[in-house]
C-alpha cells in the first residue's frame, strides 16, 4: 500500500509545521507504528532525522503511544490504541495527517511526543489509598460484591494515554481524572480518603491547565478502553459533595 503522510515536525523551542512524506510499499498487515518504523528506517538511510514518536508495549496497554490521525485520537477505529491500528484500515493511496496530542497541559517535546507529566501530577495529588506496606488486613477481610468489583475494574482499565484530552474540544482531563476517582470511590478501601482525594485531584487537574468539561462526549468516543463519561458525573458529585461537607 502507498500513503502520503502529513506529519507534524517540531524541534524543541521552535515552531512546528506539517511536513509531507511518502510512505510506499507498506504491508496491509503492518500496524500504524510499524508503518512509521519503515518510514523512519528510510529517513535514517537517507540521512534525515526520523520522526520522533512515543511507543513502548505495542499491544495497547502501556498507554505510551498516541497521535491524532486524520483528526481522530488513536485513529478512527474505536476501542484501539494507535499501536493496535493496522494499515488495512486505511485506503490505499490516501493522505494521512499525523499530529501530536494538542493541549496546553501536554507541551510538545519533539515532533509527535508530548509531555504528559500533568497526568502524574493529578495522581500524585491523591490517586491512591494510603496503606503502608505490610499493614494490610487479609485480602478477604472486606467482602466486595462482584458488581462493585466489576464496576471498579471497568474504570481501572484506564491506560493514561491522554486520548481523552486530545479528543476533547476543550482539552479537558475530566475523563482521566474521573476514572481514578471513580475506581477508588466505588471500593470500600477508598472511603477514608474519599473527600480529600476528590478535592486534591480536581485542584491538581485545574492547576495543570486543562480545559473544562462541557459534556461533548468526545473523550468517551476516543478512549481506547471505552471508559464511560458517566464517571465524569460521578467525579462532579464527589467533588461537590466533598466541597459541601469539608
Amino acid at each position, binding site marked *: 500500500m502507498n500513503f502520503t503522510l502529513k506529519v507534524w515536525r517540531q*524541534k*524543541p523551542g521552535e515552531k512546528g509545521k506539517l511536513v509531507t512524506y511518502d510512505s510506499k510499499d507498506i*504491508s496491509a498487515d*503492518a*500496524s500504524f507504528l*510499524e508503518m512509521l*518504523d519503515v518510514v523512519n*528506517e528510510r529517513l*535514517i*538511510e537517507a*540521512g*534525515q*532525522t*526520523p520522526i*520522533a514518536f*512515543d*511507543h*513502548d*508495549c*505495542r*499491544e495497547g496497554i*502501556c498507554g*505510551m503511544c498516541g497521535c491524532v490521525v486524520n483528526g481522530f485520537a488513536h485513529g478512527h477505529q474505536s476501542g484501539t490504541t494507535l499501536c*493496535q491500528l*493496522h494499515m*488495512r484500515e486505511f485506503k490505499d493511496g490516501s493522505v494521512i495527517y499525523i499530529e501530536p496530542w494538542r493541549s496546553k497541559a501536554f507541551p510538545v517535546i*519533539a515532533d509527535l*511526543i508530548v*509531555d*504528559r*507529566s500533568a*497526568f*502524574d501530577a493529578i*495522581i*500524585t495529588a491523591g490517586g*491512591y*489509598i*494510603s*496503606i*503502608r*506496606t505490610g499493614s*494490610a*488486613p487479609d*485480602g*478477604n477481610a472486606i*467482602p*466486595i*460484591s*462482584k458488581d462493585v*468489583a466489576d464496576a*471498579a*475494574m471497568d474504570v*481501572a*482499565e484506564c*491506560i*493514561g494515554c491522554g486520548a481523552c484530552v486530545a479528543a476533547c474540544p476543550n482539552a479537558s482531563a475530566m475523563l482521566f481524572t474521573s476514572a481514578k476517582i471513580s*475506581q477508588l470511590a466505588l*471500593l470500600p*478501601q*477508598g472511603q477514608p480518603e474519599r473527600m480529600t482525594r476528590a478535592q486534591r485531584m480536581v485542584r491538581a487537574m485545574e492547576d495543570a491547565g486543562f480545559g473544562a468539561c462541557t459534556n461533548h462526549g468526545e473523550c468517551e468516543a476516543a478512549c481506547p478502553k471505552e471508559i464511560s463519561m458517566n464517571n465524569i458525573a460521578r467525579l462532579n458529585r464527589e467533588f461537590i459533595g466533598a466541597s459541601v461537607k469539608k
Partner: protein
Amino acid sequence: MKLDSKTPDGPIEKRWDDYKFRLKLVNPANKRKFKIIVVGSGLAGASASATLAELGYNVDCFFYQDSPRRAHSIAAQGGINAAKNYQSDGDSIHRLFYDTVKGGDYRARESNVYRLAQVSNNIIDQCVAQGVPFAREYGGNLANRSFGGAQVSRTFYARGQTGQQLLLGAYSALMAQVNAKKVQLHRRTEMLELVVAEGRARGIVTRNMVTGQIESHAADAVVLATGGYGNVFYLSTNAKGCNVTAAYRAYKKGAGFANPCYTQIHPTCIPVHGEYQSKLTLMSESLRNDGRIWVPKNKGDARVPTQIPENERDYYLERRYPSFGNLVPRDVASRAAKKVCDEGRGVGSTGLGVYLDFSDAVSRLGKDGVRERYGNLFHMYEKITAENPYKVPMRIFPAVHYTMGGLWVDYNLMTTIDGCFAIGEANFSDHGANRLGASALMQGLADGYFILPYTIGDYLATVGNNPLSRDDKHFVKSVEDANGKVSTLLGIKGERTPDSFHRELGKLLWDNCGMARSDESLKSALARIPQIKDEFWQNLKVPGNGRELNQTLEMAGRVADFIDFSEILVKDALARTESCGGHFRVESQTDENEAKRDDAQFSHAAVWEYKGEGSAPERHVEPLSFEYCKPSQRSYK
C-alpha cells in the same frame, strides 16, 4: 569472583524469619540520611521505591518512559499466584514452593523460593488494600483460577489485565511517596553506567533522553529493577524499549551474570507476518484450557483449515501427552510446535504456525460461552490478524517472553558488587530454568515490597552513611565513558540503521539459540556475533546529535549492549550441555525426544564474570542443593 549466597540454614519454614531477625536495622532518624537509587519503575522498581520511601529513605527513581505507570509489567495478562488456599483445595506455602522449584526444573535456590511462597500471601493483602480490583466471586470473596498446569487454583486475577492492575497499585503507592517528597522521579532518563568505587556501587550515570544531558547521581545503594533481556532476540513479547543496558553495564563493572541462557519461549503468541514486524503479541496461556492445538497430518497441506477433515489433522499434543494434552508446560508446548513446523507441517504463509482451534469449544459452550471466557483475547486477535477466531482456528507460534537468567544475587538480593541490588526479572533468583505461569508478578512484588526493604537496611547499617562526591574520579571517569560512547556511536556515520543490526542479531539468536540449541548451532552463532559487532562499529548510521531527543541514538546504545551481551548468552548455552527448563540442548534428550537434565554435572547456577574487553568471560558456579524437593525427571505423558 566470590559467590556467597548467604543462604540461611535450619528448617526451611523458619529461615526467612530467623534471618530477618538477625539483619541489622537502620534507626528511623538515620534512614532519612540515606539515599537509594532505583532504576526501573515496573512491579519490582515501583514497589521497592514506594516501600523504601515509606520506611524513611530518600529514593531517586529512574525510568526511560514518560511515566512510571508504563513499565512493561503492565502487559502481564494472566494472574498472580499466592498460597492463600482460599479454595481449600490443598494448597499451602509448601506446595507453592514445591511447584515452583519443580517447575523451574530444579535449578533455583530452595531458600529463596520458599521465602517467595511465604510472602506471596502478603502481596495479595497489600494489593487488595491498595484498591486493586481483583476478580471476585458473587459472595464478595476473591476469585481464583488455575493456571499453567498447577493442580490447585491459586491464581488471583483482574480480567486479562492483572499486570496492569498490580502495576497501577504499585504506581499509586509510589506517587503517594512522590507527594510526600520522599521519592524523586527521573522520567525519560536511561542509565548508561554504574559507578563503582573500591568494589562498592556509589551511583549511576544517566542520559536525559529529552535534553541529551549526561548526568551522574550519587547514592548509598543502587537497586536495578530493569527487567529482562528478551529483546536480545529482537522479536519478543517485551515492549520495544526493554533493554539489557543497565544489567550489562553492571556486569561490566563486576556483577556476575547468572544463567543467561535461560529464556522462556511462550507457546501461544501471534505468528510473525513480515520483515517490518516490530514485536510479537502474546495470547494468554489460558486459551489452551479450551482450544485444541493441531497441524495437518500431511506436509504442505495448503487447504484452509476448515476444509481439512478430522482424520487428516494431527492433534499432536493430545497424541504425545495423553494425560496433560494441550495443557503441558510452556517449554514442552513450544518445542512440540517447533518440531511439527520443522517437519514442514506448519501453517500460515510462513509455515511457522500451528492451529489453536476453538470449534469444539464453540459447539460445547456456545459462542457466548466462549466469548465470556476469552472475549477480550478473541477481540485482540481479530484486531491484529483480521481473522475471526470463532470461525477459523487461530494461528499461533512460540515467542520469546521472559528471561529467567539475570544478575546473580545473594539471599539479600545483592549482586556481586556491594551496594548494587537486583530485583524482579533483572535478577536470576527464583524461577530456575523455567518460570511457571503467574509467578513473575509474584516475584517482582515480593522482591520490591517485602524482601529488599529489609535486606537493604542490613547493608546500609553496615557501611554507614558516607556517600561519594560526584566530583570523585570514579564518577568523572564514568561520565567520560558515557559521553565517549555517545560520540563514538554518532561518529561512525556508516550506512546501516541500529534496527537492522538488531534484527540480524535477533534472527541469529532465534535460529541458533532459540527453542532448541545444539553444539553446532551455538558455535556458529558464536562465530557470527563478532562479525556483526565489527560491522556495527564500522557501518552504523545515527543521524542527529547527542544534545537533544534522539531515538535512533538511544536504540543504537541498546543494540550495542545487546550484541555484547548475546555473546555470554550463547556461551552459557554452549557450556550447559544438558537440557533443562527453557534451555533445550538437542544432544541431551530422552528416547522420546523429551528434555534430559544432567543433575550430576549441572545442578548449579552458572555465573559469568567480565574479564575485560577482548578477554573471555569466566564461568563460575554456585552449586545448588535440594533438601526438600528431590529432583526427578519431569514427565507429562
